């Protein structure tokens, strides 16, 4: 079944909807970019890798655990 325009509101609000869509895409891009930058700024990337909402010491190499 072909999706059809059901109301003239859809055409009338096309510009607004496109604008809101662009803003949402921009927001996603910002959150993604912030995540990448924040993770890359960690001094030791393993701080991130060994923390999954709860500490996971099994991911830390044994030599470091023993130290």
């Amino acid at each position: 079944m072909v999706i059809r325009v059901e109301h003239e509101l859809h055409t009338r609000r096309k510009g607004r909807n496109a604008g809101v869509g662009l803003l949402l895409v921009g927001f996603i891009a910002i959150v993604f970019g912030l995540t990448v930058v924040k993770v890359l700024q960690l001094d030791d990337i393993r701080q991130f890798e060994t923390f999954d909402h709860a500490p996971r010491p099994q991911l830390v190499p044994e030599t470091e655990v023993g130290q």
Partner: protein
Amino acid sequence: MTDFSANEQTIQKAGHEAGMGDYFALLKPRVMSLVVFTALVGLLVAPVPVHPFLGFVAILCIAVGAGASGALNMWWDADIDAVMKRTASRPIPSGRVAPGEALGIGVALSGFAIVLLGLATNFLAAGLLAFTIFFYLVVYSMWLKRATPQNIVIGGAAGAFPPMIGWAVATGGVSIESVLMFALIFMWTPPHFWALALFVKSDYGRAGVPMLTETHGRDATRRHVIVYTLLLVPVALGLGLTSIGGPFYMAVAVVMNAWFLKGAYDIWQRDDAACEADKHAVEIKVFKVSLYYLFAHFGALLVEAALRLYGLGGWSW
């Protein structure tokens, strides 16, 4: 009543449906440009480097926060805007945007900008942005604007915070440099605004907003221009002696302050007859000089920061 029928009634009433441009106009984009420029300078002249993407997000948040306070101001001042010729075509008084929509956009964007700035950089910067929005809406718009002809003096603080926020983004603190950047805009606002008020025929009086030119007269306004310009000079020169100043900034500051001071003196020496005779030529010129003044000072700070990259900026070389 369905959402569709409600919308149709709104459109019939206003004769126009709000587009993205109308919502953007709520954010006062021209004011935003000054905020972006001064915040960017505050961020770039700070001694701590900021990752370019974090810097971009920080400036975006400050701009959105400034826009949000503009929308909240338009929501609160819709009754005044409807009376005055200059502002009657704004989105709310013209009926293109409902007051509740402007309030919603203002509150939502404020929250978005403050939270994102805090998460992206630090919570001192976010706190300063929150205070700026509060100051502009509550202290200036709700309280001072309709209460005292000194509204622009104290309310001008809201426009002076952006470089301090930019500095806090980079350093996570407040220091003499950021306080003096704040003070520069704070002290510059009254003579800048009153030079404009002397040659623009406003209808603030009809809207019930006390303006110095109307409550105390034009001679008192001229005296205020020269006094505030005199108070501005030491702030501008003092900034040049801090770690972000240097010989280039100081040279620019001396020239611009002499130029602005001469203009303020000329205004002080005039009377209404002289103003009418040359159609406010001096006041118009001083207003333009005031715009160059702020741009030159913050531009010179940027140049000093760029020179420092090559070991040339500041007083130490």
